[in-house]
């Protein structure tokens, strides 16, 4: 019998082997230390501050005090539920668009680009050399009413003669798609690039048409990249407020705009904090449901 003996890798070492010296055992913890410190100072502590702020009551004039009141949460949900939903719709649309644009692009870079591969990867990342704000402002010019994009679309009849792009939900979704596209492309590329092209030859040899081979081999093997790419696009897009500010209208605000104005304009800190926590929790629930659904937990 040629059965594989699945002896546990972590079997206890034979007695005659010397025990691992104590210095060696400390190494992993030492390596973890900088990251843990960073997270403690810049994530855990602010998170606690945020939670405690959300449980304060009072007013700007009298000052806020920690009263462990959960009422703020109910208030923000009823007042800003619409913006929260809109955020997820915009972010979801942008994620789907980015996937539709990014997958063929990543596929081409991984399998077809050959010696242009590195050039194309640099081009994907190139927008990062300019500031996020500048890039979004540039889109304002691109989508302007007298710009060539609107002109062309009007000429072919896709937009009515009085129609516009700027200050529409479409403009916001386009801006989000553009801004987060590299976060989609790079993980997709990483997972596709790992795939052995021979597998596609094998699939073809085993009577799979190119479409079937994609569905049964390429796509499942790229799922970790799809999951990583969609999360990296969706999560920051859902919390974004710059694109609405520049490309949208005050009536189409996303939750990020609300939090920004609560914190910086109205100075209603408890509401802003409660909103932040709500968004975080909602995103977390969505992400868990999504990852579960895709079944990519074991792949990640």
């Amino acid at each position, binding site marked *: 019998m040629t059965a594989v003996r699945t002896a546990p890798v972590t079997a206890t070492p034979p007695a005659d082997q010397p025990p691992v010296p104590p210095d060696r055992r400390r190494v992993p913890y030492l390596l973890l230390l900088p990251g843990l410190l960073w997270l403690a100072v810049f994530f855990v502590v602010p998170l606690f501050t945020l939670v405690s702020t959300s449980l304060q009551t009072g007013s700007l004039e009298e000052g806020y005090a920690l009263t462990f009141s959960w009422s703020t949460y109910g208030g923000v949900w009823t007042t800003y539920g619409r913006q929260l939903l809109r955020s997820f719709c915009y972010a979801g649309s942008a994620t789907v668009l980015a996937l539709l644009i990014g997958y063929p692009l990543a596929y081409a870079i991984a399998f077809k680009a050959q010696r242009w591969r590195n050039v194309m990867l640099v081009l994907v990342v190139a927008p990062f050399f300019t500031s996020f704000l500048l890039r979004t402002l540039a889109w304002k010019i691109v989508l302007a009413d007298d710009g060539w994009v609107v002109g062309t679309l009007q000429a072919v009849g896709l937009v009515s003669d009085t129609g516009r792009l700027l200050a529409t939900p479409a403009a916001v979704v386009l801006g989000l798609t553009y801004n987060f596209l590299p976060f989609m492309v790079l993980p997709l590329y990483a997972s596709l690039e790992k795939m052995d092209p021979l597998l596609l030859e094998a699939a073809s*040899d085993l009577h799979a*048409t190119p479409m079937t081979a994609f569905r049964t*081999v390429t796509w499942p093997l790229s799922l970790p990249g799809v999951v990583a790419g969609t999360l990296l696009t969706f999560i920051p897009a859902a919390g974004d407020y710059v694109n609405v500010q520049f490309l949208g209208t005050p009536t189409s605000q996303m939750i990020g705009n609300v939090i920004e104005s609560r914190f910086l304009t109205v100075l209603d800190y408890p509401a802003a904090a409660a909103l932040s926590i709500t968004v975080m929790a909602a995103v977390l629930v969505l992400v868990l449901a999504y990852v579960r659904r895709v079944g990519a937990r074991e792949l990640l």
Partner: protein
Amino acid sequence: MPERAGQQHGPRDLRLVGLRKAFGSAVAVDDLSLTIPAGSFFALLGPSGCGKTTTLRMVAGLEIPTAGQVLLGDEDITRRRPYERPVNTVFQSYALFPHLSVEENVAFGLRRRGRKDVKGVVAEMLALVELAGFGRRRPGQLSGGQQQRVAVARALINEPEVLLLDEPLGALDLKLRRQMQLELKRIQTSVGSTFVHVTHDQEEAMTMADTIAVMNAGLVEQLGSPRELYERPASRYVANFLGQSNCLDGSVVATQGDETLVEVHGVRLLVPGRLGPPGSPASLGVRPEKARALPWDAALPADSAVRDPALRNAIPGTVTDVSFTGLSTQYVVRTAWGEDLGVFSQNAGGEAPVLRGDTVVVAWRPEHTFPLAPASVVAEEAAEQPLPRPAVPPTMAPLGS
């Protein structure tokens, strides 16, 4: 997807007609014509880079020939897509789908052709390759030999008319390879498909194949059964790629009936067959195990040697090396003109021991001599033998059997 072509007719030969493949200016396969009989175990044997894998890929449809045709019976499949051919491949690196279980890997081809009730067939196929009970594992959890058998099962389950094996045993260790060789031969006999096996391992080809085509630089050098190729190699290349040979160059002295007398540095040797008019160059070879190294006095007197056929072909020389391997003793005998001849003497007892420095006669029967393509054509290349990567011979016509 079209129904599998193989179902409407009986066994069909695989025919390659004038097949040629060039990658840019590099010619991988050059005007290759072969007929591989239905149901045979056929080996394409050659060193790496000789075009054998490219040939296989053209049969699989993974490479489009620059010229020529691939035919199954009379049906031209040259331009058919790989997924439309009744041909399946066992890849060198197996190319198992890492995200699918062993069962799903094996069922892959059937599912693509729309078969639903695959469970029973898959279980049967896994039993055939002795992997029953491994169906739920992932390929990554199997050993190399097990993965190899999954790859065989995955291809065979489609009942291909032709199964292509691209050095499938290359990654296995020697013992496992031996075992798999016999296994593959057994499976081939039981399913009856045509197997085309690409390998650079002459022993593997000899063990498994009914017919071997020895390839060199994009051409078939010689085609035949393992025994034919071994006993009657047509060129130095084949003589040294399959086992070892002593090759000698000389010129024709006279033709005596169906034999030719060839003079090699003053020694007259008898070679079966007619090698051309007197004075024309001729080459011949003999296997080391067919030759004997006899002490000088045992071979004398010279005229008795003429009468004893076992001593008819005899070359005097000096033993320069003796290595005893238990099973046999290997001698190296240097001739008067400085050429080294190998002699394997089986350790059956009875032969007088020969020591280093002894003057001996290397003798063999004329019928054990095989004529070779004249040295003028292959001299350059012969100097390189038996290295696995020979220089490309300047002009070498494909030799039939």
